[in-house]
């Protein structure tokens, strides 16, 4: 079971990132993934510097064109992380979409 307590603590930290813009500093596209994400390869992971100065990691979602590069501008969204166990609490994280 994932830890509902950890998720509850984490929610208060990451909710402040909803609805922000940022610039991509680092990026890679994963083709061989941990089992949780295996179904969804390839996916792009980026490190973004937000307009509030903080740096956070996240996956790119909803992207067709253009290709995400270092320097691309992205916007934050809240998205679901795949369940490991159907009984677990649903886990959410910040991802980025082109904007």
């Amino acid at each position, binding site marked *: 079971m994932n830890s509902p307590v950890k998720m509850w603590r984490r929610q208060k930290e990451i909710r402040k990132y909803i609805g922000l813009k940022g610039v991509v*500093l680092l*990026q890679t596209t994963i083709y061989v*993934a941990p089992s949780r994400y295996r179904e969804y390869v390839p996916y792009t*992971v980026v490190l973004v510097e937000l307009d509030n100065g903080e740096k956070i990691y996240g996956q790119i979602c909803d992207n067709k064109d253009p290709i995400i590069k270092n320097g691309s501008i992205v916007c934050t969204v809240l998205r679901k992380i795949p369940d490991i166990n159907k009984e677990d609490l649903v886990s959410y994280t910040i991802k980025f979409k082109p904007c």
Partner: protein
Amino acid sequence: MMLFIYHIGSINSSWEEDTDMRPSIIGYNSTQFGELWDKSLYQLLYESVQGLFDKTNRDIKEIDAIFYSNMLGGLLDNNLLSSGKIAELFHTHIPVYHYESACASGGMAFQQATMYLQANRDKNVLVIGAEKMTDVSPEKITEALISASSGEEQSAGLTFPGLYGMIANYYLQKYLYSSEVLSYVSVKNHFHGSLNAHAHFKKKVSFEMVEQSSLVADPLRVLHCSPISDGASALLLSNKKEYLGQVKILSSSLATDTISLKKRTSWDSLETTVIAGNQAFDIAGCDRKSIDVAEVHDCFSIAEIIAMEDLGFCKKGEGGTKAMEYATQLGKQERLVVNSSGGLKASGHPIGATGIKQIGELYLQLSGQAGERQVASAQYGLSHNVGGSGAVAVVSILGI
């Protein structure tokens, strides 16, 4: 002889004043690296040590302490308290210390063993590194390995190829290299591996083969990444008068940095390598040009390119160019040969054993026992062992 050694001693040296008493490497033994289905972790460990005792004609009764390096035993097998397991294996009561710093576990164990010998006169110590990675699926391994990254990196779905892929894209974009530059490193290290009977991969690879292997994490391809291997390596170190060996440990330095890649001050350089490297050279009292042979941490091809710059063997941004020139390949070398063992890429990467194997390779080179891959007249060797995406680095310098 005393005058000669005094000449290369550094004023900053924290080593013995009587530099003859610097710790030395008495012996080295390694198992085969690869997919060793028949052997368990502790069987491999035992084999590497027993082989070492045979080669050096010693036994456990002469050992004062054991420094053990292993990363995944606890995570994969639910086995901790390895000190007890090792005491059981060798029927001993001596101190056994377990070190973990991901891929730098071996370097850390070695560094600590040398610190122990500085602080304690008249001792023999064993440094053992072992890892068993093929008992579980590659997916399970990938997941276990990612424990050496930050929680946020894990939550984002990053893997180690992913973290180094980010570094590679940054480096390639900054210094205007194409991703092809990575493949030269793999070709070189496989060439060296073909000369190493203990290597996981003894086959050479062509540039095209590397370029055509599938992507793991852009821009890194399968043949840019070190493999999943089993193996164990062991060293016998001593500062006893009667066991003085030819190959001396001139320095061993460890530096740390943030576990999280995002908190580093730069992404085309590992500060831990720079700090540990500078300190190691300082204490050893020799300069970059003195190094004849080096084992550099090539967990991914980009890591070797950047390490060459961070260790001061070439200028910042030039690592790629040097790779393309095969400047550190045996037979083509400009000055120094890098990863004569085959590196992590070809000789394999049983995580806990790698840092020990690196020292062992230098020992073989400096004592003229490297056979087909012998670097002629090798006098000084450097090993570079990194943990995670650069949170720990250990740089050690050996000399004769």
